[in-house]
């Protein structure tokens, strides 16, 4: 028996060696071929690769990505700048009645549910989005920082906990949204059951269904978007915290630095480039919020039977995109350009602030 095992091992070692030899020889043959081709090209002065400058070669290699990006990103962006100045653009007949510089912007800005809260809804897309951005992003970034610092200091079952906190990232957003909607159900929802358990009267206390007040459904939405975005942030922060040299912590320990000061004075500054990156990307991401609202409240963006709307800017833009009415596509373009401007300004502000606060 022992002999058999020994022989099998020997056999597999042999197989492994011959496979490695095979690939080694293949590489030799290929390299040889390459050298021959190169020699031939050099001889007949045909070697264009060496004649092109480096950047030209780089452009050739980048061209597949550039082509796709131009078709699906750059061209639409240019087009939306064009669309904004069209008056009554009809998509099917491809006709316009004239040009306007600010007409479409004015239509959007004065529209009842974009910036100005509509009289019959009491909410607007921009206000909704700003609330979501300015509440959910700071909370989720801070929370992710604390959780990753705590996770980093856990010793037993470390990877188990890290997996748990990363699970939401690999789960479908819509599915989590449906679970949330179910948890916040008025009758028999988990949250209401918990609340009644601690003695709160939950009869008719609705969160995402008819009768829910604006702030209650907003709370659920913010709670949901924080939770859904937490996993990725924790992962980024945790890896950067683990990359910090242990000696800084040993030095701090010898200097009797309290835990809180170690966190604020060493951990946070040392991972500040990552915090900045997360901050910028999640502000942009939060401004583009769309599917979490759909997951919780459906495409209307509102619980049934309420007088407000939880529409985000992107949802507002989206309703014009079908282009069935003349000029609606231009309105959508104007809305997206406004969103673009808001994000641009905010990112520039963040970059300015980061110059002082971020240590590379």
């Amino acid at each position, binding site marked *: 028996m022992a002999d058999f095992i020994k022989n099998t091992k020997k056999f597999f070692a042999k197989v492994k060696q011959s496979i490695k030899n095979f690939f080694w020889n293949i590489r030799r043959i290929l390299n040889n071929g390459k050298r021959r081709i190169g020699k031939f090209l050099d001889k007949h002065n045909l070697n264009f690769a060496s004649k092109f400058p480096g950047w030209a070669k780089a452009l050739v290699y980048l061209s597949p990505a550039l082509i796709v990006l131009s078709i699906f990103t750059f061209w639409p962006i240019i087009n939306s700048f064009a669309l904004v100045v069209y008056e009554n653009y009809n998509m099917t007949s491809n006709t316009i009645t004239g040009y306007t510089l600010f007409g479409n912007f004015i239509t959007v800005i004065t529209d009842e549910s974009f910036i100005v809260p509509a009289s019959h809804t009491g909410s607007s897309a921009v206000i909704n989005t700003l609330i979501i951005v300015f509440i959910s992003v700071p909370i989720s970034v801070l929370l992710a920082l604390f959780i990753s610092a705590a996770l980093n200091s856990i010793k037993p079952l470390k990877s188990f906990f890290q997996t748990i906190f990363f699970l939401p990232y690999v789960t479908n957003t819509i599915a989590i949204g449906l679970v949330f909607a179910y948890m916040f159900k008025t009758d028999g929802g988990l949250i209401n059951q918990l609340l009644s358990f601690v003695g709160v009267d939950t009869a008719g206390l609705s969160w995402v269904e008819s009768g829910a007040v604006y702030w209650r459904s907003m709370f659920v939405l913010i709670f949901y978007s924080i939770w859904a975005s937490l996993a990725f942030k924790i992962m980024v922060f945790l890896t950067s915290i683990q990359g910090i040299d242990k000696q800084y912590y040993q*030095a701090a320990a*010898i200097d009797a630095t309290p835990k809180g000061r170690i966190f604020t*004075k060493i951990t946070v500054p040392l991972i500040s480039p990552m915090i900045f990156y997360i901050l910028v990307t999640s502000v942009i991401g939060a401004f583009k919020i769309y599917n979490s609202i759909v997951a919780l409240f459906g495409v209307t963006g509102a619980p049934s039977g309420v007088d407000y709307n939880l529409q985000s800017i992107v949802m507002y833009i989206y309703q014009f995109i079908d282009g069935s009415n003349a000029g609606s596509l231009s309105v959508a373009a104007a809305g997206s350009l406004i969103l673009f401007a808001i994000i641009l300004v905010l990112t520039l502000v963040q970059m300015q602030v980061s110059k002082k606060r971020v240590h590379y």
Partner: protein
Amino acid sequence: MELRLENLTKIFTNKTGAETTAVSELDIVIESGTLVGLLGPSGCGKSTTLFMIAGLEKPTGGKIFFGDDDVTKLAPEKRGIGLVFQNYALYPHMTVYNNILFPLENLDVPRTEAIQRVKEMANLVGIGELLDRKPSQLSGGQQQRVAIARALVKKPRVLLLDEPLSNLDARLRLQMREEIKRIQRETGITTIFVTHDQEEAMSISDKMVVLDFGIEQQYASPQSMYNNPDNIFVAKFLGNPPINTFEAEVKKGHLMINEHKFMKFDVPDGLYDVGMRPENFRATEEGFKIAIKDIFHIGRDTMIHFDFNGSNIRALVDSDNIEKGQKFVHLTIKSERVYIFDKKTGEVVNHG
């Protein structure tokens, strides 16, 4: 403040349960205000010893005393030590000023006094003009000084230096060596200095401990350790060029070399390891005649290679006494500069 290690032991256990003894029953008393070099080849447990004194490693056994206080179980922050790390561990996002101020922010020090102390310390180590810079804008030697200032600013009871010069280039190393010695003298702080470089340890230390595999080999002042090594390990570890060692027999009280009587020694007959330092040989008119195998003239000195009992021996003699192409030379060596070691234990047998 006196620092005392009693039976200090550290055993590392890896995942499979195999044990490695990093430090074994170390018994050392470090007098107040002295600079002690902890010397040994890499992996001999010197950094582990230092980290145990700092409190960053927990000893498996034994005790550590600062003066009369038993600090063995004390957390590092409560021990009142300053530690300079091998790569300095300066906080990269803080200026030099903030780096030095950082330890004081955690202590109960009035702000004006703290600032005063930072400035004093910066001037002491010679970086008074660099307080606004970030560590990345400093040279290695300057970073080193900042690290020392940061360790000293809280007026620690003990200063610990973990291979502080190993990241510097050769010239800067010499300069910083003297600088550390000066700072230590001026502050009068008890200092432990870990290094694997015997020359560095010899030049800087008041006393040195030589460790090998976690076992103390000798604890003495550098010069006496050099002249009177306790065993063959210490003799081999100190000195550059290294000591010559070879096998030789003592017959009837005479050390036999190349089948001739070399010198009389009061040791029992038998086979021994013999050590002779290259620079202790003298070329004279009379003396032990040897056949020169090779000569290297290196400026002031001349290195001669020859055979003793089949081993290649090097002697460093004055260039004036040797001529080019010389085939034979007469060498002498003082009997107290000949070290005879027991073959089994490696202990020296002809020195007190």
